[in-house]
């Protein structure tokens, strides 16, 4: 009888020492609380919930001690092996393979291409220039990150936050951040999606500061109708030109245009429905949760995370400013035909940034509908940010 009691007590002791409660430290508690904050932002405030909620829950799961769902040591650049992950990894390790092998972001771009109408861009190709100008935020932030002491790979991963494109940021970060370090894909994604949701707060003051009332009141000419032929040619030509110029941008731009061609061809409706819905939803769940799992306490609770968040808002602000300033140049060159406000939509948070242009324009003139004009630079910004990502990957 005493033996049974001894075994019982020893088992309880072992269970206690193996439990998460025993292993919990202050960092884990802080991270779990931070994950609750992001869950609140996603659910109650509606901050990009489709991705922020999986990221927040991934953060929650990975910071539960001894849960064993994610093992960062398996993804160390020197020792990484898919076989080892499959053999020794947990659920989130296996889902994370899609991030590590750069599979998820191009597939998300496939779905985005299926959902995007490039008509406003085709009817006014000059919008491409505004999309290009807004990517200035990425490169100037690269300089800012270098000043704060980050190395080239980390600076490249941080600066791509300015592209305001979650899949692009995750793609670039997964390619550049191969070793360990204080900057992780999770922190980059967290910053990117948080600021994408804050675009309506970040952009308007900058737009108003850089434009006059007369410029904001410009009513632009109606866009010409775009034929189906043009919409079918568009993805093919864009893929050809971008892939030949910047081959490293091909996975993102190619899949974006593939999705768009499926949509515009009109003969692949089933594929379009799947790409827009089931495929996007599955990838979003896997991507968000596994990326959130990389936000372990040691990566977030350090000064680098604060610097990343500061650089993130700088990237968005600079991108907005560059887009609006180029819009002002186009206003002057065209003799007042282009409203500079649409330049801010070059920051590729689709369609949020275009809505902000519409809203700020309507504050000056309620009858001024800028939304469809702003959609041109907005979708051009998606292409521009993918090209900028390709350039960063080529150089660094």
């Amino acid at each position, binding site marked *: 009888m005493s033996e049974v009691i001894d075994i019982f007590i020893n088992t309880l002791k072992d269970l206690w020492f193996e439990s998460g409660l025993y292993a919990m430290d202050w960092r884990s508690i802080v991270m779990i609380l931070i994950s609750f904050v992001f869950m609140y932002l996603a659910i109650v405030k509606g901050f990009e919930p489709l991705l922020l909620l999986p990221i927040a829950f991934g953060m929650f799961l990975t910071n539960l001690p001894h849960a064993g769902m994610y093992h960062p040591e398996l993804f160390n650049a020197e020792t990484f092996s898919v076989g080892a992950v499959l053999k020794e990894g947990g659920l989130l390790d296996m889902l994370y393979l899609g991030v590590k092998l750069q599979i998820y972001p191009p597939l998300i771009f496939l779905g985005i291409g299926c959902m995007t109408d490039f008509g406003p861009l*085709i*009817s006014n*190709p*000059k919008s*491409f*220039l505004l*999309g*290009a100008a807004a*990517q*200035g935020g*990425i*490169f*100037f932030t*690269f*300089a800012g990150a*270098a000043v704060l002491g*980050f*190395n*080239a790979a980390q*600076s490249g991963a941080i600066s791509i936050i300015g592209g305001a494109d979650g899949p692009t940021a995750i793609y670039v970060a997964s390619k550049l951040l191969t070793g360990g370090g204080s900057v992780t894909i999770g922190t980059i994604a967290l910053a990117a999606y948080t600021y994408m949701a804050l675009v309506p707060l970040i952009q308007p003051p900058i737009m108003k500061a850089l434009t006059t009332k007369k410029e904001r009141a410009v*009513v632009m000419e*109606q866009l*010409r109708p775009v*034929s189906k*032929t*043009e919409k079918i*040619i*568009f993805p093919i*030509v*864009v893929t050809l*030109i*971008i892939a030949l*110029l*910047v081959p490293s941008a091909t996975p993102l731009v190619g899949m974006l245009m593939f999705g768009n061609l499926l949509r515009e061809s009109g003969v692949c409706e089933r594929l379009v429905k799947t790409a827009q819905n089931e495929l996007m939803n599955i990838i979003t769940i896997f991507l968000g949760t596994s990326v959130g799992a990389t936000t372990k306490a040691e990566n977030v609770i350090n000064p680098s995370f604060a610097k990343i968040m500061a650089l993130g808002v700088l990237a968005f602000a600079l991108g907005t400013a560059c887009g609006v300033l180029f819009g002002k140049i186009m206003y002057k060159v065209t003799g007042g035909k282009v409203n500079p406000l649409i330049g801010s939509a070059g920051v590729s948070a689709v*369609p949020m940034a*275009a*809505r902000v242009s*519409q809203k700020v324009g309507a504050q000056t003139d309620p*009858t001024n*509908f800028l*939304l*469809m004009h702003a959609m041109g630079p907005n979708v*051009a910004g998606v*292409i*521009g940010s993918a*090209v*900028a990502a390709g*350039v*960063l990957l080529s*150089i*660094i």
Partner: protein
Amino acid sequence: MDATFVGAVVLTGIVVVFIALILLVLYFSIQGKILSKSLYDSNDVKKNLKPTENKTLDNIHQIVLPQTNSDEDEVVAVISAVIASLSVSDGKTYKVKSIKPVKSYSSSRPAWAMAGLRENTTPF
């Protein structure tokens, strides 16, 4: 990180992005001009325009006013189509005797344009 390298990255990045998108601007501007022109030339409605009034609704395109721009042609076509559908439901024949532009003092945009804009922007 070396300042020279940083400067090179910033300059190269901005220039390459602009070059890539300028090529796209040039291509799609030219394509737009070519394809828009070929669509206009093959538009049969334009060839059948005649100045007329008090015509029946059998030939909708003959009701279109002369020397109007394409927006007004489309508006007239839409109005005529609606009236033609009334004929089908009522069994009576309706005639469009004239369509005149009415000056709007409240807005710089015609009401149809405003309605279309609202409909297109509602999903956003």
